[in-house]
């Protein structure tokens, strides 16, 4: 089987929510000599991109996207030990993702999805839950200073989105801004807003969030 055929097989198992098939295809790709990074970037991630697009177009729904995430998770359970062995004990994988919903907001469907996607994509997760005040975020970042760290905040409402600006400012005031990458998501969040408040990235949906997160943590 050619490399492209292996990548297509990996992609198809994600798109078709084939959990066992995804694990098998991942092992097959490793056995064929492909690296974990190639398997993720050229096989699994394109599959998640298709899933994200289908979810966005309302062609598939939450259970299906979660099954695809589970397939991705099955692949990552095989790939992570290989990646750790290749890079040594000290490597932190994709990094530590601190996920939360902004203070004043309890809408957590998107937050949960993104948290799951990041976990499935090799991030270690600290889930702070909903209605999280900025003080608590700053404490958590301070506690993990020195680690490869990503802050992932969600807000459904415009009113709670405004708190994201304070988050960035408070981290800057505490001298922690350079210790962490910051992603914000949620219905009202736009690229323009991200630029205006000095965060690092946003994404259209949960699957895209995982792709963007991996990209900015490179």
């Amino acid at each position, binding site marked *: 089987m050619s490399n492209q055929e292996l990548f297509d097989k990996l992609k198809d198992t994600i798109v078709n929510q084939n959990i066992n098939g995804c694990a098998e295809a991942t092992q097959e790709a490793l056995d064929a000599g492909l690296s974990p990074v190639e398997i993720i970037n050229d096989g699994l991630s394109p599959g998640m991109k298709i899933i994200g697009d289908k979810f966005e177009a309302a062609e598939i729904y*939450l259970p299906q996207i979660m099954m695809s995430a589970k397939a991705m998770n099955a692949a990552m359970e095989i790939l992570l030990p290989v990646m750790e062995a290749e890079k040594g004990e000290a490597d932190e994988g994709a990094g530590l993702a601190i996920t939360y919903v902004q203070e004043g907001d309890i809408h957590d469907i998107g937050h949960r999805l993104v948290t799951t996607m990041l976990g499935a994509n090799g991030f270690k997760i600290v889930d702070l839950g909903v209605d999280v005040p900025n003080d608590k975020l700053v404490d958590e970042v301070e506690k993990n200073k020195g680690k490869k760290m990503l802050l992932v905040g969600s807000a459904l409402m415009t009113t709670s989105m405004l708190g994201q600006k304070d988050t960035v400012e408070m981290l800057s005031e505490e001298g922690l801004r350079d210790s962490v990458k910051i992603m914000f998501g949620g219905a009202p969040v736009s690229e323009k807003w991200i630029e205006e408040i000095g965060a690092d990235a946003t994404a259209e949906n949960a699957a895209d969030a995982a792709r963007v997160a991996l990209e900015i943590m490179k």
Partner: protein
Amino acid sequence: MATEYKLRMGDGKRIFMTKEQIVADLKEGMADAADLGEIPELSEDEVDKLADIVTMPSRMVGVEQGKEVPVTHDIGTIRIDGDQGNSGVGIPSSRLVGAMMHERAFGADTMELGHIDYSYKPVKPVIAQEMQTMEVCQQNMIVPLLYGAMPNMGLYYTPDGPFPNPGDLMKAFKIQEAQEAMEHAAEHLTRDTVWIMQRLMSSGADGVNFDTIGAAGDGDMFASLHAIEALRKQYPDIYIEAGMAGELLLGLHGEMEYDGTVLAGLWPHQQAPLAAKAGANVFGPVVNTNTSKSSPWNLGRAVTFIKAAVEASPIPCHVNMGMGVGGIPMFETPTIDAVSRASKAMVEIAGVDGI
């Protein structure tokens, strides 16, 4: 230099746009709706008329005389006495006073009674008070007075209700268990809503308003449609309004069906026939406002979606036009210029039967 018009962003902020920019945004919003819903775009004449409405110089605009439509009201009297940081203005008053203010001071065409939490489930422990209040209101009022609340199926999951939270189960990849929790919650929601409305009908209610159907996904609509069906069967003359929570019915379960149609992923023009089939008299379609886009973009999009829903619906459509829906900015005190323009556009271009 081209003339610039005073307009709004989806969050209500003042912006200035040229006519060219306005038409471009109207068309872009329209195309987004047409693409997502696989529905027809507006005609060139309709786009021109929309542009005329948004560029009218007066602060407030109005429908042409003779084209007026009934304006129905949800959230009960909470907008008068509510003081929970929502759209309520915190005037201490009884609900009878609030309802009569709507009828006699504001000129509302219909009104509804609701309680401060505004979900059906918490009505159960206070049902006797709701019945008494309905009786007193009906003795004093003339406009149709419905009982209204949100199905809000989320209240049936932990920590608020008896069933495991599908959000937690999904996160643990327990997909089937999550779907079963939704099915159980839907059964209870249907049962509770019917029980509550049986009592309020015995107290003289004109009918029921299901407000924000689908807020907890397809299970929420499944339960609401079955409640509508049961109420219609028991009370052939009950007035039933079925108002949606969002433009797209979220597929949290993904496989629930009503009358052979999968509920997940339905757009307003697909939701309306199902509400009618279940037995609703009036359907309330919703299109959400994007706060990062301009008011012409949002209005072009909303009018396109709603026009298709009005055409597909066998029953009257009263479009939802509160804050953050129907082309109205997502803001606690939506600006009158934006509300008025969106209102006129929905009546004259989308052809709604009411608001």
